[in-house]
């Protein structure tokens, strides 16, 4: 099965928030909700050895997706192409999936009273177009494709880097597919130590 996902090269990312807006414009995401969310990590460390970077997040397309396993109605599911999606018709609004997601990348649709999230812009990729956030990324930092296909954009970008420069958000057994490229040019990759209390702030608590 394909492992389609977004890969972000943080060495390139300028933290412009363009992906957030591209996603919202494309998918009509309501005010206050974000399928694509940019955090600012750090600074951590002491001058002159400090780390600070922008961290764009979105559904990480986990292999063992907890949102799918906790869903009581099958509304959270994996489609034939392996993409984790929400069937809004089946969603009863219990929000279990939102609690189960380790990354807080699911949104609540107030109008439709259901959970929703990044769809990898399936309506575009099915027409051989790129997801909106990838297409418009101002720094050319975002890539879309199948990790298992060596000719995909994501595989080709990852192939340029060594293992130590490739990261995932903290894996608690859910095996996120999304990869982040970050080299020593930026500094030390940071794990988030606690979920953010305020999802709309740039807070990204890390161990000091």
């Amino acid at each position, binding site marked *: 099965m394909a492992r389609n996902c977004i890969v972000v090269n943080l060495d390139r990312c300028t933290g412009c*928030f*363009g992906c957030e807006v591209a996603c919202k414009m494309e998918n*009509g995401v309501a005010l206050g909700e974000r399928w694509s969310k940019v955090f600012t990590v750090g600074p951590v460390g002491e001058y002159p050895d*400090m780390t600070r970077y922008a961290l764009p997040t979105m559904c990480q397309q986990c292999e063992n997706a907890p949102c799918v396993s906790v869903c009581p109605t099958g509304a959270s599911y994996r489609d034939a192409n392996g993409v984790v999606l929400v069937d809004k018709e089946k969603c009863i609004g219990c929000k279990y999936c939102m609690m189960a997601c380790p990354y807080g990348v699911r949104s609540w649709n107030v109008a439709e009273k259901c959970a929703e999230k990044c769809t990898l812009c399936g309506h575009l990729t099915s027409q051989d177009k790129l997801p909106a956030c990838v297409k*418009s990324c101002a720094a050319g930092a975002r890539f879309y494709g199948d990790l298992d296909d060596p000719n995909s954009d994501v595989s080709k970008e990852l192939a340029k880097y060594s293992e130590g420069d490739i990261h995932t958000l903290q894996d608690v057994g859910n095996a996120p597919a999304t990869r982040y490229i970050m080299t020593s*040019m*930026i500094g030390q990759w940071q794990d988030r130590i606690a979920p953010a209390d305020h999802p709309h702030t740039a807070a990204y608590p890390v161990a000091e």
Partner: protein
Amino acid sequence: MSRATMTRRGFLKSTAAMGAVTALGISAADSLTAVDPAHADEASDVKIIKTSCRACIASCAVLAHVRDGRVVKIEGNPESPMSQGGVCAKGLAGIQALYHPNRNKYPMRRVGERGTNQWERISWEEALTEVATKINEVSDKYGSEAISVSTGGGGNPHFSNVKRFGEAINTPNVWEPGCSQCYLPRMGASLLAYGAGKPNNLSFADSNGWDYYYTDSPVTSLVLWGTDPSNSSVATGGRALAELRNRPEGLRTVVIDPRYTLDAAKAEVWLPIRPGTDAALLLTWTKWILDNEKFDEEFCRTWTNMPYLVNPETRLTLKATEAGLPGTDADYVVWDSEKNAPVVVEFPMNEGLKPALFGTYEVNGMQCSTGGQLLKESCEEWTLEKGAEICWLDPEQIERALEIYTDPNGQSGIMQGVCIDQYAQSQQCALGALNLEFLMGNVEKPGTMLQKFAPAPCKDQLGNTPRLLSKEKVMKRCGTIEHKGILCWDMAHIPSVFKAMKDGDPYQIHMWIERSGNKHVVLGNSSCLDEIVPNLDYVVHCFMYPTAFSVLCADLLLPTTEWLETNLTIPQLNTIVMRQAVTHLFETVEEGIIWTQIVQKCAELGNEHCAKAFDEEACMAPPFYKNEHEKQLQHLNKLEMSWEEACEKGVIEWAKPEEYRTYQTYLADDKENPGKPKGFGTPSKKLEVYCESNIILGRTGAPWSQCAEEKPLILPPASADYEPLCYYVEPAESPLTDTEYPLVLTEGRLPMYHHGTLRNIPYLREIYPVPEMWIHPEDAEKYGIADGQWVNIESRRGKTHGKARVTTAIAKGVVYQERFWAPELLDSDDPAQAYKVMNVNVLTKNDPPYNPEYGTYTLRGFQVKVSPSDDEILKSVWIEPEQFQPWMPAPSEKTEDVFDYGA
């Protein structure tokens, strides 16, 4: 401060009806039809139109998807060599700006008192007649200089045409808060010292540094001095740096910025400099490069004026006639160390002669130093330790940065940001940075910042008509005898214009026509408008939506177009990117057309000067266009295709990259002196390390002073000579001496906003609803401030607020906050709070000392104090995303243009 209440007093639902009175501000949503949000499962009738964004000055190429006359989607156009398909948050939100329910839709006349926010719709004919009548009346009664005209860089300006307009209505008092405070110092210094600058200077954010958009550029390191391309030019400059850093060979960078920006976070060395001390660090770098003999000696001998002897009596370069040598008063003199004698220069340099770069020599009874010697003396005291002490830096880190910049195996360049244009040392810092580049020979080589690549056949700026103004009018331009550098842009000095408005000194200004996003947000010490505007008889504001200036100051509002309604040609490297109107809403009119319409109306009503604006002979330049068609032809200039053809192509490659990237143009053959190289565009054809052109500017106004009768127009000298070399002056308000206001304030760009614009865009405002005030944890502890808390920020000018972000991303002793305002407070009981509540420009300085050359006042590097705040007014500021709902787009039908196309 009291909490502003949202009574929507006087709010009437429709602005569409003529004669109805309405308030502008929160939501003027009226009879417009709401449609579903844009979605990508597009029907087949979607037209994709190539155009370009103008949410900021980068003008990235975009594709506008238009269905049934409505823009439903914006994405990047990969054909642009600069943005390569990227679009930032500002551009992507263009639909929310276009269909903002609060767009200024029709000309509106104030009813009731100023500041009460009551307006009635009038027709364009009425509006034009009213403005033209006022212009003619004021001109007849007080003289046309009693009308002031202003613009700004934000919000889709037609930049140079505001100057044409001022010249057409015969006033020298045109100004903008960019100019002396943004870009002009760096451009002007480059024109004087390098002989090119428009563009061709060190400002990367103003789309210079063209070699860096090509990943085969041999650049190996860059110094980002007070510039953050990731924030200021996201998809162009930010993108270019991302590409360069990610080449296999990479890019080493040094970032000099009080903030640990995302560019700083990727740098090898970050120097968190104290705001206002850039000149001290420039002098430190200069001394280190000279002492360590890192400079390009051969280049300096041949292509700079460092070996030229300077006459101690005139302070200008010594000429053959003054040295008692055969030759003319245009011949320069150097010192031949072998023969121990002065020698007349044979351009570029006498065969076999190695003139002394340094030293002081007796010539014709005078002690003459070389330019190089004077440079050396100017930085004598600036050791690494002294520089580190003044700039609050670590000397070892300064040296690490210098080693990167001067690496003999690499090619470096300096990108100098706007910070230096925002305090009194603007020209000094600009000259100081150019000198570093000159010393290193970083001029027009592959991989250097300074380049003179081939010019595009089209024009984005049409150029103005300075010679329409008589000598009498030019001599009345406010503040420019003292600050002659502003004449480079034919503009006036803002504090001097305000003095004329407020005190009638040297004469009363009666009328103000303004076009920009919000003067209250961008002017230094902007509360000063409270005392100024009551003295004005008539104030016009042209913009796309109401701002604090509209509500507090204006008598007439003229609705301008968004970029999706605008036409322009934009040179981008070896291409031209077209901006074309993809729709037109209500009765909005492109700014450039408003200007010509007013001038035509003035002429029709008998203003004889205005009629001259359309006469090529009187203008001594291409005359004012009369309509959109003529304007387009002037923009196309030498591009041999029709507007329609150009728009169809969207991005036009007029040269191959290798034809465009013309290096070392100064070595090209001089047509007037066959067999000789052309040199640089300075009087000496050399790079003026000892910038005597700056002295001459201060004494005479040359090369920029001009009028109908004379060019150059020789002006009386400024009160003191402009200095030819960089020097350091401690900021007027300094943390070294200030006990009452202990912290230094700096500003700096955010990626989702441009100048004072876009704070009313829901998808942008929810990302960053209120300005963060960055403060170092040690300072936060000292002043009792917690992360996320509202803070009072006070200076000697006023008080405002910011939300604390306690972070080591800011230097100790420094606080950072960007300009901001709260459009949601416009329609409250206290509309002035819209600009006062969280705007650092109520704190900034517009009083002396000014920069001698440009009259630059102080927006950064002055003193503030901070304390926790629980002011009531802060509860009125919108912070929650849902609060921005009234500003969500209200798409509407396309309308016909208001004025005839003209063809």
